[in-house]
Structure formats: C-alpha cells, structure tokens
C-alpha cells in the first residue's frame, strides 16, 4: 500500500519532538538549539530567512550552534547569504548544499568556500527564480523566519520589512514543512496579521531585536557634479524622451541624484506628471522631495528602509500600508511588478564589456544577483502595451509587420566611466568570466546581459543600443560613451561620429545640456538634514547619517 501521507506523518513527528521544548508554540531563546536539534533531520532542505532588511539572526546563531553529529548535510535554500553564521554552518558540516540569490557582505568568503569545495552549489538565482523553485523542486522542509512580533497562537507581524516571509511560509507551511519564527517580542495582540498563526509552528522571543542595515540611504552630501550631469542626461534623454511613468530605480548614487532632480531640474523641463509617477522601489529617503512635491503617485516596496517608517505611515496615499498604518512590503510581488509592470529599469553596475554585458562581480567576490536581473531584463512574456514600451520596441525593430511588433522594456545602465580608485567601468572582458572559471560556476555571473540593455548613460553621453543594427555598431556605441578608459580611447572616431549623427550616441550638447550647469545647487536636498526638513520631521535618519 502506498502511503500518501508520509510527509504529514513526518511533519507531525517533528512538531511533537519540538513541543518538548515549547510551551504551546512559544520557545525560550535559550532553547533554540534544543528545538532545532529536535525538529531538523540530516539532509533537510532549510530556508534560513536572510533578507535585505530582516535577518533571522537568533535562529542563525542557533543553527550554527547545533551539534554537527546530530544535524548535518543540510541543503540551504535561502535568498540571502548575509550573516557570518550563514556560512559557518558549511564549515562545520551542518550544511552541505546551497541554493541562493544574494551574498553581498559575504561575497569573498563564499567565493573561497566554493573554490575550496566546502559548499556544494546548486545555483545562484535571481530572487524570482529561487522563489519559483520553492514551489517546484526546492521546497523547504523547515523554514526559519523572522518577524517583529507574534502572539502565542503564532499570528505574526513582520513589521514594514515583510520582504520574503510570505513566500517562504507559503511554500513551507502548505507542503508539510515546519515554520519556526523568531520575533523581537511576544505580544497579546499583533498590530496586524501578516502571517496567520496556523502557518507558524513555533515562536521564539529573540535574545535581541534583529539588526537592520540602512542599505538604501544615499547621503545627498556625497553626490558629485558628474553624477548630477549623468542624472540630467538621463532625465532629458530617456525619461522625457520615452515618457517613462512606471519604473524601478537601482540603489546607487546616480539614480538617487535623479530622484533629487525631479522637483528641480525635471520640474523646470515641465515633466511633472509625465514621468516617474508609479514605482516599484524600496522607500528611498532621496525620493522624499519628489513625493512631497507631488511627483509620485504610488510606490510598492520590496522591503522598507531604516528611519522611513513614520514618514510612510503619514503618506499612505503613496505607499502600501496595512490597517495598522505601517508599510506592507513584499519582495516576490514587487519583483514581479518590476519585471512585468515597469517600463524601465535604471541602475548602476561595476563593469560593462564591449557587448554590453554587465557584472557587479569583482575579482574574488561572488556577490550573487538579488533581483536586478529580474528588473533589468526584457520580459518576453509581456503582452500589455504602453507608449514607452512600444516606442522602445519600434526603435529596436524597423522591419516586419507592425501588428507583429512588440515593445521593449527600457533597461538603462547609469555609470561613470571610472569607478573608485580610477578603476575603469568599461572593460574588454568581464572579471566575472575569470571568477566563473576559478570557482567552477557553469554560468558566468552576468548581472544584465547585453541583449537586454537598451541604453548606457555616462558623463560622456547616452548610447542608445536599440538603434544599433549590428555588433560593430553596438561596440562603437559603447566605446563612444566610455570616456577616457582604454575601451573609450580605443574607439573608431569616424564611426562614433556617424553614430552621433544618427542619434545613437548623444552628447550633453546634443541634448541641450551644458556640463558646467551640473551643479549641486540643482539638488532638491543637499544633505540628510534637508531630507528631514522635506519630510516635515517624519523621516528619522539613522545616527551615522547625521551631522547635527
């Protein structure tokens, strides 16, 4: 007789073993290791929630402290490898296999461990791919998640940084898995129920609140004239040109500069209401002046940002908020929105090659992908038109039956030709290729493939790759905006001139922009303090960004 309920039976046994260390669903922080050793089995697939802004850090410490003789060979399936404990478990043998998306701060250690064979890598995914696989072949047996508060029934309030939690819980709880949540406090009644209690099996009151890093805060005081010039070109040469209303911004200084130029420079160009109205975006503090000036209609968020909570509560016309008033974010939905509902992704990168492939990999760091490739790619499954999308599509394809033409998402790389320490952004060969060879990755970690990129904006000008008709043109268009890098100096000057005449390359003067006007006085806010003023005192920046 086939047992069609073996998973359920196994789950019940795990829960029963865990209950020995709990009072109802509640487990004391000191009992974390006992609980995990009771619930986990060798070889389990485990998601240890590691988001951008919310880490199950108490559970991570607990897992790392488990006895490798009892718990070993786990298969970790989680979006972020962020905390040292996320990798410690591979050193002790508690974990063996890994499928993940993003490893920012642990990028160089993960590269070493891949190279040394301590980690058996499945794949590095984008967020949406990993989430998708949770529901196909990487469903967790146990999910270790984090929230702000829970009641004794397990009803969970994630706080404004909901991020991955609903996705992880959905996949685990409804497929016979066990969900263990750490919370900052156990309360009688949660402010709102983000995850219903019947999906949470155990709740742990953490020894200390989970740490949140202000990842999306860019200090206007650090913005340079070059970044402002690039932002001006992007606004005039792309936002205005294509009438981009629905968009996603990267998290660099270049896009932050654009956010700060909307109420000043873009306002003077008469673009208010015509561009940048609907966003898939974390709540960037630098967007506050644009919101306050009435530019922004709506923002859906992947997660939140430190210090923005009060501001968001008071701007519920703009942000998605719960009945309790606080932000409700959701990474899976926002990534989907970025992929399908946005007409433009614009962001920075570290390296671009002659075909337009880009990578944020530097030598010896495997940073992973996160969600940039989801947003920074042309979704071939898209079927709804918009003016922006259609205009870009027509630029790319000039022959054939118009009824069969489709649009293109704008994927814009916003880069300075040189990075820190005079490292060139434009290169003949991406460092990612070398790294892939060294660490045995089957795919080179390319963040955005050249065929998805539509524009590259540098301080020298805009290269419109949609208008390039062959690989040669494409290469010269890229060289033509690569400034004084070796790639830039290696251009065919005559061909670049012809591309300029065709509008493939546009210089600041072609756009009617005088580079000497790129001045910090154009920024709607020149400091974090200015952002606080714009917010009417609602934005509460973290201490490290203050100078008052």
């Amino acid at each position, binding site marked *: 007789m086939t047992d069609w309920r073996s998973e359920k039976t196994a789950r019940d046994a795990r829960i029963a073993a865990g209950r020995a260390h709990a009072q109802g669903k509640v487990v004391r922080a000191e009992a974390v290791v006992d609980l995990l050793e009771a619930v986990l089995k060798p070889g389990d697939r485990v998601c240890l929630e590691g988001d951008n802004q919310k880490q199950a850090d108490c559970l991570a410490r607990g897992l790392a402290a488990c006895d490798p003789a009892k718990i070993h060979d786990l298969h970790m399936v989680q979006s972020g490898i962020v905390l040292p404990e996320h990798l410690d478990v591979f050193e002790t043998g508690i974990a063996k296999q890994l499928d993940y998306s993003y490893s920012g701060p642990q990028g160089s250690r993960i590269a070493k461990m891949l190279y040394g064979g301590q980690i058996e890598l499945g794949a590095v995914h984008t967020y949406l791919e990993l989430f998708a696989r949770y529901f196909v072949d990487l469903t967790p047996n146990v999910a270790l998640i984090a929230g702000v508060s829970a009641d004794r029934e397990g009803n969970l309030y994630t706080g404004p940084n909901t991020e991955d939690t609903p996705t992880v819980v959905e996949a685990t709880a409804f497929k016979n898995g066990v969900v263990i949540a750490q919370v900052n406090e156990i309360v009688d009644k949660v402010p709102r129920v983000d995850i219903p209690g019947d999906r949470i099996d155990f709740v742990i009151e953490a020894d200390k609140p989970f740490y949140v890093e202000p990842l999306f805060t860019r200090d206007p005081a650090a913005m340079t004239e070059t970044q402002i010039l690039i932002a001006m070109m992007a606004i005039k040469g792309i936002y205005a040109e294509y009438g981009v209303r629905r968009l996603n911004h990267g998290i660099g200084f270049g896009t932050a500069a654009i956010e700060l130029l909307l109420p000043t420079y873009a306002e*003077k160009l008469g673009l208010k209401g015509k561009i940048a109205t609907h966003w898939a975006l974390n709540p960037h503090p630098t967007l506050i002046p644009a919101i306050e000036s009435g530019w922004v209609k709506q923002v859906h968020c992947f997660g939140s940002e430190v210090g923005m909570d009060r501001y968001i509560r008071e701007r519920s016309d703009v942000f998605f908020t719960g009945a309790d008033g606080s932000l409700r974010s959701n990474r899976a939905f926002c990534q989907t929105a970025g992929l399908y509902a946005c007409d433009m992704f614009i962001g920075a990168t570290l390296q671009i090659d002659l075909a337009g492939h880009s990578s944020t990999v530097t030598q010896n760091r495997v940073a992973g992908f996160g969600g940039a490739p989801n947003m920074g790619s042309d979704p071939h499954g898209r079927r709804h038109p918009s003016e922006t999308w259609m205009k870009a599509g027509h630029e790319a394809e000039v022959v054939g039956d118009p009824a069969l033409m489709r649009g293109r998402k704008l994927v814009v790389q916003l880069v300075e030709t040189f990075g820190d320490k005079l490292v060139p952004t434009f290169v003949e060969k991406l460092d990612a290729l070398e790294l892939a060879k060294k660490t045995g990755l089957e795919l080179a970690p390319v963040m955005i493939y050249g065929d998805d990129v539509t524009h590259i904006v540098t301080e020298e000008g805009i290269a419109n790759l949609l208008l390039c008709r062959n690989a040669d043109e494409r290469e010269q268009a890229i060289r033509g905006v690569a400034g004084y890098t070796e790639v830039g100096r290696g251009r065919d000057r005559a061909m670049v001139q012809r591309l300029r005449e065709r509008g493939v390359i546009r210089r600041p003067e072609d756009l009617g922009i005088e580079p000497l006007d790129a001045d910090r006085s154009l920024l709607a806010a020149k400091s974090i303090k200015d952002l606080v003023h714009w917010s009417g*005192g609602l934005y509460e920046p973290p201490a490290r960004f*203050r100078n008052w």
Partner: protein
Amino acid sequence: MRIVTDPGSQSWYEASARQRVAGLVDEGSFAEFLGPAERAMSPHLPLFDLPRAFDDGIVVGRAQLDGRPVLVASQEGRFMGGAFGEIHGAKLVGLLRAAIETKPAAVLILFDTGGVRLQEANAGETAIAETMRAIADARAAGIPVIGLIGGRAGCYGGGGLIAGTCSRLAVSESGRISVSGPEVIETNKGAEEFDSRDRALVWRTMGGKHRRLTGGADAYCADTVAAFREAAIRLIGAAPAFDLAMLEAEQSRLEARVKRFGDCRDATEIWARLGVNDPDAVPAMTDAAFAETVANVTEASHDAR
C-alpha cells in the same frame, strides 16, 4: 537652464575656503596675500608622496566688511583636513602679526581644521602656539579676532584651542569645536567611552548647538554665507577686552560650568539644567526655534572670553 542662486544663500558647509571669503566680505573687496600664483607650497608633503596645494590649504588677505577694513584667513577643510602644516600655519601667524601693525577693524578666522598636519607635526604645533600668542597680542591691542566655525572638518585639536583664544565665535549647527576628535577618543579609550559612529552623539557633545547653549560660542547662524557675514559684523562690535578682569570672569564662568555640569553624562542633561524645556528636541530644532531657546539661557551670552 541655470538655476541661479544668490551667493549669500550658499551653504557655508558646502562652500570652499575661497567661496566663503568671497561671499563673506564686501563684494569684490578681497585681496589675497601670497596667492596661488606665488606657489608657496609645502616643502614636506612630497616626501610622503602626497599632493600639495598652491595655497597650502589656507587663504589669507585683506578685505572690507560692511565698509571697514578687515584681515581674513580661511581654511580649506577638504585639503589635508584643513590641518596646520608649516606654511599653512605661518600664513596665519604672519597675518595676525601684521594686524598688530595695520590695525584693521577685525581679523576674521574661518576655521575648518582637524588640527595639526601629522606630516609636518612639529611645525604645525609650533605655529598654533605662535598663532595663540599673536591673537593675544592683537586682542590686547584692541583688535577683535572673530572665529567662524561651520565647515566640514570642524574645528579640532589645536584649532579648538585657537578658537578658544578668539574674542568671539560664531558657529552653525554643523560646526564642531573640540580638542580630541571622536575617532581619537574612541581609538584611545574605546567605543564605550565614545562611539564615533554615533553621529548624533558627536554633535550633541561638540556640535554648534551645544557650544552655543553653554556659551562656548557667542552666535549661532544658519548654514549660509550670508548668516555668517551678518554674525561677523555683529560680533566685531561686541568684542570683549583682553585683560585681567576678562580672564577672571572667564575663570569663574568655566569653574561654574564644571561645577554645575561635571556629573552630566550627556549634553541633554546639561541642556535640561540650563532650563531648556524639551532637551531631546534640541537637535531637530529649526534655527529660528533654537534662537528662541538660546535667548532664554542666561549662560549662553557673556563677555568672559
């Protein structure tokens, strides 16, 4: 399209040493001494493979302020942290010594310094001592020496001591006055003593508002060149003497401060004892609200400097 801004409304914090001088004094009246074309550059920095500046990070010269002759020195906080090197210091010393002979209406020092330039430490330290002696001489000769503090580098180390020697000080919210910097304290005494990354703590402890409330500075201005100009003009007319009576008054003032606030761990406790109703609200206060608060604090204003 050019967004034209009034030079007076320019941020003091953001402006360069030259921009500050240009906007501070009467338009077009500034004449520089030993300007960049004379290339008086550090003979020492090349030994350390460090770039030099044509003015060694300080602009000195004469100008008119509200129609009256003044001498001006302006430090560039972005070059080597505005620190005192041999030439940098000597330019300030020469300017102050000249003041005693030429009797301007005031000497203005636009501080923006981390203290002594380590690559020229002995020269910098000695120049600071020479500067303080020259300031005492100038003040005794009846020439007000006014310090203006609101730059990126703050006013640290020996710069803090020179500031304490001036007749009057104007400070903005961004301005910091201190001897040991937060990083120095943290390095020597640990993060428990001073967490230098806690910027709010840094400003509460040594920032413009704290200094103004406790009488460590005599005027508080908005972060604009125009506001500093107005403060400078006002302070020149209210410079205390440099004599025994003043120093005795300063002795009493500082002793009273240490006695009254010596057990306070945080600036907010001091502000509360000074009679500020909501001390926690001080850092976020607007300039106007803060001016009102200061007006009610008797200790903030005095002639004992």
